[in-house]
């Protein structure tokens, strides 16, 4: 977009960058806010169907699809309450810290080829790091609420999220290692083609580590059965006990944003990103070169693929939430320290050895050629994979996209 603004319209560099950044930020913000509305509605419908209920049926005509919006208006109109003993500034700040962390992580998330807020050569690292910041908002909220239940929730969240960062980090490192790049666009590109090119099917170790990632991701976004920070039956509502109105809804948006983000991460790192299970575009003969509309079609298809996969992940999280009881804090910690971390470590080592021994996968020729992977690997960070793609290279890659 910057190129377009500078070359076609003739804006000066800084103005073009600012404009492009604003447009991207607004787009992502709306994706999160709109996505949260849709997911809150979906959660209601999914939970209702699981529980033999109907859920919202009236607001907005059929299926109650406007219910979340109506709730949003209600939350906007609610009285702004703050407990007497609360630390005013921190109490007000906390929801935005949470939300910003969730929001910022979306910047590096590729929705389709080239459809990314800002392509970063350390995107994986960036997303994991920024997502980890979300816990600060929760700790602030718990601390500033002047409520013992909130404090309990905050402490639980701090302990849990910090612990689960370790296995989560190990899990995301494996696709990084396979692709030889931390750039999420590159990682997804390397999984183009049929679904057996996806990293989850790369070798047995990646298959196992995918499930470790799922566990850790659910835990790191505080969803059931790891939703200890807001355990209703124990801590009333945990860290957001004292929150109401719009501030409370920011916590919710952050939660749903993070849910979508970790699901999208799973899609990009393990499930081929925007590449569908069947390379439809390639089979139909679409490529970057064919006509004016083909690149757009390919991107649209990729977008649908990624959003579909991520939404599926979110729905599975909902399904788990409405089925399983909650774990206890010591069991959550045991799951992390005794199971997830060692398994992730062993799988990491296994995937590494596999790369050396069987770089091309079990079936020679089915996966990507091993030499190419190792080549990218040897180049290391900031190498070819990290550099912005040249025009013809991107064309080459997009041909095998969805």
């Amino acid at each position, binding site marked *: 977009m910057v190129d377009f603004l500078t070359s076609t319209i003739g804006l000066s560099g800084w103005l073009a960058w600012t404009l492009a950044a604003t447009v991207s930020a607004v787009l992502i913000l709306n994706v999160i806010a709109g996505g949260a509305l849709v997911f809150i509605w979906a959660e209601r419908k999914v*939970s209702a169907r699981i529980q*033999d209920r109907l859920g919202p049926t009236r607001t907005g005509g059929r299926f109650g699809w406007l219910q979340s919006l109506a709730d949003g208006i209600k939350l906007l109109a609610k009285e702004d309450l703050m407990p007497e003993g609360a630390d005013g500034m921190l109490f007000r700040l906390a929801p935005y810290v949470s939300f910003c962390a969730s929001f910022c992580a979306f910047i590096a998330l590729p929705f389709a080829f080239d459809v990314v807020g800002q392509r970063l050569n350390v995107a994986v690292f960036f997303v994991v790091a920024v997502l980890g910041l979300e816990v600060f908002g929760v700790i602030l909220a718990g601390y500033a609420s002047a409520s*013992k*239940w909130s404090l309990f929730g905050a402490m639980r969240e701090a302990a849990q999220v910090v612990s689960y960062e370790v296995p989560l980090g190990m899990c995301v490192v494996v696709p990084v290692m396979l692709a030889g790049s931390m750039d999420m666009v590159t990682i997804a590109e390397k999984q183009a083609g049929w679904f057996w090119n996806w990293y989850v099917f790369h070798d047995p170790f990646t298959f196992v580590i995918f499930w470790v990632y799922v566990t850790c991701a659910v835990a790191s976004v505080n969803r*059931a059965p790891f939703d200890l920070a807001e355990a209703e039956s124990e801590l009333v509502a945990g860290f957001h006990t004292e929150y109401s109105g719009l501030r409370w809804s920011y916590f919710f948006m952050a939660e749903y944003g993070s849910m979508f983000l970790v699901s999208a991460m799973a899609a990009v790192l393990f499930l081929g990103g925007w590449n569908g299970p069947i390379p439809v575009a390639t089979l139909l003969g679409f490529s970057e070169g064919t006509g004016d509309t083909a690149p757009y079609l390919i991107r649209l298809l990729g977008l649908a693929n990624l959003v579909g996969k991520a939404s599926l992940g979110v729905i599975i999280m909902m399904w788990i939430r409405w089925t399983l*009881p*909650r774990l206890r804090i*010591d069991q959550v910690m045991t799951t992390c320290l005794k199971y997830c971390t060692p398994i992730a470590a062993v799988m990491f080592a296994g995937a590494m050895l596999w790369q050396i021994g069987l770089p091309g996968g079990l079936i020679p020729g089915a996966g990507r050629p091993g030499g190419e992977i190792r080549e990218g690997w040897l180049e290391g960070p900031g190498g070819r994979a990290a550099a912005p793609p040249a025009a013809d290279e991107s064309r080459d890659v997009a041909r095998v996209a969805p």
Partner: protein
Amino acid sequence: MANAIEDDPRIIEFDVRTDEMLVNMGPQHPSTHGVLRLVLRTDGEIVSEVEPHIGYLHRCAEKIGENLTHRQWIPYTDRMDYLAAMNMNLGWSLAVEKLMKYEVSEKARHLRVLIAELGRIASHLVGMGAYGLDLGTFSPFLYAFREREKILDLFEEACGARLTYSYITIGGLTADLPPGWLQRCEAFLDQFEPIIQEYHTLLTTNAIFVKRTAGVGVLSRDMAIEYGCSGPVLRGSGVDQDLRRDGEAIYTAMYDGYAFEVAVQKDGHYPRDHEYPAVPAGTVLGDCWHRFFVRMLEVVQSMDLVRQSIDRYSACKGTIGEPLKLAEKMPAGDAYLETECPKGQMGFYLVSDGSAKPWRVRARSSSFSNLAVTPELCRGCLIADVPAVVGSLDIVMGEIDR
């Protein structure tokens, strides 16, 4: 208290002394089943002391009873254990009948068994569903309520009320069953029977559920007897006591000719336990899991009793007879009778001076005794275990405070 902490094997960090915090759990808290207030002395997540405070729902029912006739007090018994109001009605009616040495007709006797056992199913369904809620799973609660609604529909048809029935009354029942009721009741039982397996899948054998309840809140046989526990709490500790079999003659006569086995573990086996999921490893007799399982067994047992009573009731000729007049003079004297209510042994005591109103009325609540073990069971447990333990005792505040 320091000793209690040091004696607990789960607490490792003896050398780290942290500050204790007093937390009020309740009277407004999602998992204290009404208006129970628990004062927790916590050290981080560990609870060193729990003190229950009661009295938030005290309505002077016993004093009111001195100003009403015996039959007029029936609605007040409804509001004691409002989840099993039929059984409360029955307890009081039998106590008064014991004083009068009155015997109801054969048809009324079988109808009373039928209604009381249906009430037991309804009460255990709430206990079971709410226990899932205490452990953080919402869906079983709604599944349980779905089935309970059908029982309430049956009750509504029989007596016009859905919660406070006043159906069983002194000298019989207020009305006979409407036509077609028995068929609808049997249809409900047929439909309900396979569903119990779902509850076992979702809760009883669920890995997380077992983790949360096995070995938690172990109530030893001796302690259960010392504290005067009763009902499923007592049987969950392996004490073979059920007033329907071991009670006073006027009560056991009601169940004369009925075949049922007391749901208690004898020699490591529950009655007919080959039909149910195996007792998972890690459970200890007297822990939360066993208390829960006994309730589940009693649901099946009650269904069996309902079927038997339907047969016997329909075999009876004639009418159920007329209940006593609203104000009838009682012989002077006193009577005390305990009946096996879903929550435990509920006793009613009345002293009569020969007038139409009792001179003194007194109720002995099973939930009160069952609640009394909470401080013992919760010593040294985690915060998340407190709702797990209190929920497994299945208390009703209306009965404790009266």
